């Protein structure tokens, strides 16, 4: 484990990613302390430029942009993490079943996966949220529904290459049930690519969430970065700060998660250390 962390942190960009991510996490945890009260609260005069009182200025209604960024961090991280978790769980189960059993089940599941990969995912997500009506729950569902297919394909590939290995044959000879072989024997052996895919997916999920919120499809009761940018775009000319700072927050968070994900990839797959892409 320590060897893993050493290998992980020796990678300079991964270390930068971890630091950035810790910063965002800290901001999210401290949000209720640093900026107590409702982030939708009118904190001061409208469209106040950045000043010592309001670090990142205020928006058209006098909401504190800095408070919105801190509270938005909670939303983004939470939605990104939960949606990715749901997508990874679904994708893993479907991919495992398809890869392990093969035959008709595999054909059917892969066909469904292909269809989900063909349809334009962002438009699909928009439709789902619009139909389910905007809330944290429906945003999570929409992101998960459009994100699982790559995981399913990845896990299926791993299972295909593992299922005829000797340890699986041994388990079968011992009379182990299919379910136990899938979850207790094969799955632990292909966890590292799943972890890497899952961590990179959090970044995509946060981008998706911010896009939905920007279009006005976020939960109206929860502050988010995309919402702030959407609300500030009408005053772009006179109050650039309302849009600019939440966007930088998204950029840094997504960048951090990507760096961590790639660092994990390098540390977990030493064979691929010479990362070509």
């Amino acid at each position, binding site marked *: 484990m320590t060897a893993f962390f050493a290998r992980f942190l020796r990678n300079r960009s991964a270390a930068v990613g971890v630091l950035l991510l810790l910063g965002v996490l800290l901001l999210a945890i401290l949000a209720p302390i640093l900026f107590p009260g409702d982030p939708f609260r009118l904190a001061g005069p409208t469209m106040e430029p950045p000043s010592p009182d309001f670090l990142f200025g205020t928006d058209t209604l006098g909401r504190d942009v800095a408070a919105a960024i801190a509270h938005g961090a909670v939303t983004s991280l939470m939605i990104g993490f939960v949606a990715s978790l749901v997508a990874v769980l679904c994708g893993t189960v479907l991919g495992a079943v398809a890869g392990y059993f093969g035959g008709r089940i595999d054909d059917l599941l892969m066909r469904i996966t292909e*269809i989900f990969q*063909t349809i334009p995912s962002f438009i699909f997500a928009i439709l789902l949220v*619009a139909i389910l009506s905007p809330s944290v729950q429906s945003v999570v569902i929409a992101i998960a529904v459009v994100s699982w297919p790559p995981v399913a394909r990845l896990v299926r590939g791993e299972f295909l290459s593992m299922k005829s290995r000797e340890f699986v044959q041994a388990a079968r000879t011992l009379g182990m049930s299919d379910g136990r072989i899938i979850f207790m024997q094969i799955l632990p052996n292909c966890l590292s690519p799943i972890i890497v895919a899952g961590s990179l997916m959090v970044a995509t999920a946060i981008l998706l969430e911010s896009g939905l919120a920007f279009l006005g*499809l976020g939960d109206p009761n929860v502050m988010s970065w995309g919402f702030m940018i959407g609300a500030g775009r009408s005053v772009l000319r006179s109050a650039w700060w309302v*849009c*600019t700072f939440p966007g930088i927050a998204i*950029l840094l968070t997504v960048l951090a998660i990507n760096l961590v994900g790639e660092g994990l990839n390098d540390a977990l797959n030493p064979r691929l250390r010479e990362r070509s*892409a």
Partner: protein
Amino acid sequence: MKRLRYILRRAVQAIPVILAIVVMNFLLLQLAEGDAVDVLAGEAGSATPEYIAQLRERFGLDQPVYVQLFHYMTNILTFDLGYSFRQEMPVSELIMVRLGPTLLLMVTTLVIAVGFGVLLGILAARGLNTWRDNLISVFALISYATPLFWIGLMFVVVFSLKLDLLPASGMESIGAFYEGWDRVVDIARHLILPALTLSLFYLAAYTRLMRASILEQAGMDYVVTARAKGLTERAITYRHVLRNALLPVVTVAGVQMGGLLGGSVIVESVFGWPGLGLLAYDALFSRDLNLLLGIFFVSACLVVLVNLFIDILYTFLDPRIEVG
């Protein structure tokens, strides 16, 4: 002849995908609260229960679900996508008008993304691990993490509001009534910012892909042969490696078509580009589900078509692919 058979087979394979999308559309429509009659009745203000029941009967909404599904399918397959009660026009007509601008935006974006992506990828791969390579990698990393709508707005701030170089929204200058070349130039000026915004992410993707692809090819036997023949590195890269390294870029360009269409919703709504994406944005605001579903269906079909086209293109680009 063999190729024609292959093309036909691929086309036939696309049919179940389209059918599945139609079914999905129908299910989504069922999932939504209320139906077209509720909308109409709401619009009319006071509607008696008898009148509502009568309307339901007329639209066939009192039929069992599978009958409705059958009607829905026959409708869609004859390209009758329903009626937009907000815009008071058939959905298919609304979509047809908007298809052109979106395709223009897509094609321009693809040209920018593939063109510069390939170029930057070559530069990075040829200067492996030099400052040039690192700079390009950092650029790609940042582009990956940038939300489209935000960079679009920042472009507007810098290039339209501060520097006043390019128009911030729309496709043509309103009230200018340019004709001929003036009009082309005008549209091109409006196109630059949205296309640049939309291409940024894909530019980064193709750069990394191209770099990886060239590095992979660099170890191949034919490269060693070319070098042994005494060809210069430049000639090897541009005449031999480039062609082979381009194949994965073509594949991925097809795969990302769906993402590109999704991105266009955001970019078009930021720049007021009058395409399908802006139509979707408007439909979202006026709660026009019929229209939204129609756009979803058409864009999904577009992706299927592009993928089919790429598959066919592939048989020309890579003769090793078995077409039989």
